[in-house]
């Protein structure tokens, strides 16, 4: 499985896709600075999901172009590992985006001469919502990708991304006082359940797919 992550890393490095991370960070700075509901929720969720989507879309596009779904399973690796590597990469992207978001937030705090304290930096509601949005998006997209291939899913990916952001943005407005540890734990549990269910589904699809 780690051989596949190494392959993904090589492709992202070679195709300059890593620089999307820098762009994402540059976009985050002004977005984080403005404190309106819209910028704090919709726009941040959108940027988060969009950056994760770009990484996934680039890799799947290269797999499609170079017929990797045929030659990778011929290597000494199981299809379960192939699928697991995709989910693991999504998880790494999540952590990377989250780290960048918090770095952006810390910079803004420092710029406003405020101390960087845990309560100001970490927002349980924000992390929880983003995780739900993220897991919802990838739980739908990855099995769809294995079922229908890149060509058929690329537009679905866009629609799913916008829907996910809209749904989670609305949830933020509905749930009363979500900035609590219980909310984060519930969000993590729900998200992980979705991802686990989706993972098992994707493995089944790939194992039965006529590549």
């Amino acid at each position: 499985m780690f051989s596949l992550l190494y392959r993904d890393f090589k492709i992202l490095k070679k195709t300059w896709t890593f620089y999307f991370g820098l762009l994402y960070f540059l976009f985050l700075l002004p977005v984080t600075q403005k404190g309106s509901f819209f910028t704090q929720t919709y726009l941040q969720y959108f940027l988060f999901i969009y950056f994760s989507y770009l990484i996934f879309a680039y890799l799947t596009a290269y797999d499609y172009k170079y017929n990797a779904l045929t030659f990778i399973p011929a290597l000494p690796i199981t299809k379960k590992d192939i699928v697991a590597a995709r989910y693991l990469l999504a998880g790494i992207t999540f952590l990377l985006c989250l780290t960048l978001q918090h770095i952006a937030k810390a910079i803004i705090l420092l710029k406003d001469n405020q101390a960087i304290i845990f309560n100001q930096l970490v927002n349980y509601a924000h992390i929880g919502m983003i995780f739900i949005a993220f897991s919802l998006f990838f739980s739908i997209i990855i099995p769809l990708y294995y079922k229908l291939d890149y060509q058929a899913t690329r537009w679905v990916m866009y629609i799913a991304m916008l829907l996910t952001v809209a749904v989670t943005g609305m949830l933020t407005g509905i749930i009363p006082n979500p900035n609590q540890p219980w909310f984060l734990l519930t969000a993590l549990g729900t998200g992980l359940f979705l991802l686990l269910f989706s993972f098992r589904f994707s493995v089944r699809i790939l194992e039965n797919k006529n590549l």
Partner: protein
Amino acid sequence: MDPVLQLINLEKTYDNFKLDKISFKLERGYIMGFIGPNGAGKTTTIKLILDVIKPDGGQVLLFGEPSTNAIDIKERIGFVFGDNAFYEFLSAKEMAEIIARFYKQWDWNLFHKYMRDFGLNIKQKIDSYSKGMKVKFLLACALSHHAELLILDEPTSGLDPVFRSELMEIFQHLIAAGEKTILFSTHITSDLENIADYITFINQGKIVFSTEKDTLLEQYALIKGGSQVREKIVNTGKIQGLLNSKVGFSALTNERNWFIKNQIPGILIERASLEEIMVHYIRGDKENVQPALQRL
């Protein structure tokens, strides 16, 4: 000792194609030519062997063990897909670094040796290689983890005759030590005339024959003659395929000795090449041959 590769009643059904209970085996140290026209089921069979797709029935045994989810067994296999040279925007070195991580037995010294032997620049991007160079690169990757079984899917397709003959020499050299086994799928049968030990012929998802090449070329013959003896030849019931022309006919038989012994006047008995065998089987006039066979 178990055969390196054994297919037992392997089945796979698609909407418009069926691989119909195919069986054959390949012993260690031999080259098997896997021939058939485009769309006959060669690539599907290879994908089943490599566990890329799941069979609907039957079994693939590699080194005596079932191939499903067998990572350790795949370590002992090298493959070349003629139409696929991995991620071509990477350099050969970068791609090899990716491939190397999948194999415990990957040998960088061996890889560099093959790259040198094949005249390939390791720093060059794969997409700047010619078609033949890409095949050589794939072959270097397939050989650099000490694979015992090489599975080659149309490696010579689209290559010029000089490059093809060079590749054949490489295969012959590889097989000389007797440790490697090669399954070589192709529709360019002339590539196999000199190097293959066994020939397996697949047509429309069914195995027509799987036998030693020398026996095959001994048994099969082309019977040629004018249209006046055509009926007589067909009525022998020993014809597998018949091609008609304006001046006569050309018929394929797998009972060459019978025709030599019976000396039918007005015919010419010639050795059949693999290509001729394949063409007569596929294009042979079934309307004329079948009634004769049914009378048997």
